């Protein structure tokens, strides 16, 4: 074992389950008989009509698993209507180590995910409070962190530091983006440096850890919030479950690396239901003396 797979993570873990059960709600997955009409929970295996599931903000009504959202869905349930202004939406990856077909993959995903990269950043208000926001989308290359993710997050913090604004990041990631080699590793240092400066400017940083947050993102900006919130049942960890299982050769409990496991071990401040997220975020902004925007 070893580092082999330090960053090989969730994708594999859930692929297993996918194979055994029905597909995750990703439109490009091969449809089975019920097609897109049914949601089958990857955690508890319960099924629900897609329509009901979506009405429930993509939360499993049976086990409370908060499933993965696209950046657009997340934005819609988080920001005040019409308040979002995107930053750097036209920034795209290059191919620093000349990885075969990397550009092709990026441009295909750009169309499918309606974004040029795995994180969308910008400014918005939340219940009237102005905040700088970053939303990672696991549908885009498992939201792995390469140059663009690192640069956008860094710019986000620099913008907020200069204007004395709070930052909220909805984290999700399979880890560092291997296709960019060592350059992707360096993004961990770069983003952490920008957070250090935001700290020195005494501004609030909130991270919301969503399913799944792992690898290099867990080992950098996702773990550095003043307040760390997690969504119920989200997978959060550093190493991949299978890597650990291969190392220790024993069964891992089901809740290992869950949001609940992290809360118990002291690594998140709270687990917050999607329904209450806006309220909690705005309350945190208020208690840090940020002012509501005038209409």
């Amino acid at each position: 074992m070893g580092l082999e797979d330090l960053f090989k993570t969730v994708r594999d873990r859930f692929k297993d389950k996918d194979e055994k059960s029905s597909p995750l709600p990703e439109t490009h997955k091969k449809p089975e008989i019920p097609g897109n009409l049914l949601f089958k929970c990857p955690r508890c295996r319960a099924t629900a009509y897609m329509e009901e599931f979506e009405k429930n903000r993509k939360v499993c009504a049976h086990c409370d698993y908060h499933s993965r959202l696209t950046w657009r869905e997340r934005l819609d349930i988080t920001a005040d209507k019409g308040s979002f202004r995107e930053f750097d939406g036209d920034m795209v990856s290059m191919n620093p180590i000349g990885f075969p077909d990397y550009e092709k993959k990026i441009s295909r995903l750009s169309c499918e995910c309606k974004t040029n990269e795995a994180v969308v950043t910008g400014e918005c208000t939340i219940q009237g409070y102005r905040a700088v926001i970053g939303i990672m989308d696991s549908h885009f290359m498992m939201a792995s962190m390469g140059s663009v993710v690192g640069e956008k997050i860094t710019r986000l913090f620099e913008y907020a530091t200069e204007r004395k604004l709070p930052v909220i990041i909805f984290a999700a990631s399979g880890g560092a983006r291997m296709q960019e080699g060592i350059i992707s590793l360096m993004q961990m240092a770069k983003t952490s440096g920008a957070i250090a400066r935001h700290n020195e400017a005494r501004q609030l940083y909130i991270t919301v850890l969503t399913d799944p947050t792992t690898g290099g993102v867990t080992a950098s900006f996702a773990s550095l919030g003043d307040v760390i919130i997690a969504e119920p049942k989200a997978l959060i960890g550093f190493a991949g479950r299978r890597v650990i299982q291969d190392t220790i050769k024993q069964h891992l409990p089901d809740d290992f690396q869950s949001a609940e496991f992290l809360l118990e071990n002291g690594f998140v401040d709270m687990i917050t239901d999607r329904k209450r997220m806006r309220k909690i975020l705005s309350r945190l902004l208020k208690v840090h003396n940020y002012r509501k925007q005038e209409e």
Partner: protein
Amino acid sequence: MSRISAAKRLELIRNKNRPTVNDYIPMIFHNFTQLHGDRYYGDDPAIMAGLAFFMGIPVTVIAHVKGRDIDENKRSNFAMPHPEGYRKALRLAKQAEKFRRPVVCLIDTPGAFCGIEAEKRGQGEAIAKNLMEFMSLRTPIVSIVLGEGGSGGALALAVCDELMLLENALYSVISPRGFASILWKDPTLETQAAELMKITSEDMLELGVCEKIIPEAEGGAHNDPQSTAENISDFLFEAVQRLIKTDVDVLLKNRYEKFRKIGMFSFVHE
């Protein structure tokens, strides 16, 4: 200098006789005094740290402990740290800041340990904290990759003012083996992966990741550990001398910029 392939270097750094920190520390530093523990949980044998004189200058040394044989490796967990290892490193880096001592990090690790306890004690948090704190540590930091610079586990000691690699050392986001097993579902393709990944010292220089390459003895450091240690000392001395004379605010600004500019991206035109 003709380039040695990444695959050949993979062999070189795995050579059983390749010198480790246990060999280098007495050759480079004087009066090395080891300090133990993170003050919260325990003492991680995968990271050794302490105080020493380097060319007469007091320094703090933080190093991954690769063993020279299986017993030593078992004792130091094959240089794969747990969170308490990173927290010990941070404690002693902070102490170095207090006393305005330069910090010298010697990197040689396959990566952070992957296990239940490591996760429970916050492996991700421990590494993240080091990245952030080292970025604003108000004292010079020089890091040297001696052999294997494996992913986040290496980076946690590599946020620095100047990064150097020994000529045959490798630095990568994931091991070539891991890379091959993810991408091609076949870990035996590690030599192909090593070539593709751009992980050699020359690659690091070209990509702007490291500042200097330290030459090794002819045919690899194991052929003459003493002369390799002397090369390390020369490079380290030049850097430390220069950095301790630099104003701390300038130092921090340069350190930030060094990482800030790494990344390759462009903009799609409307």
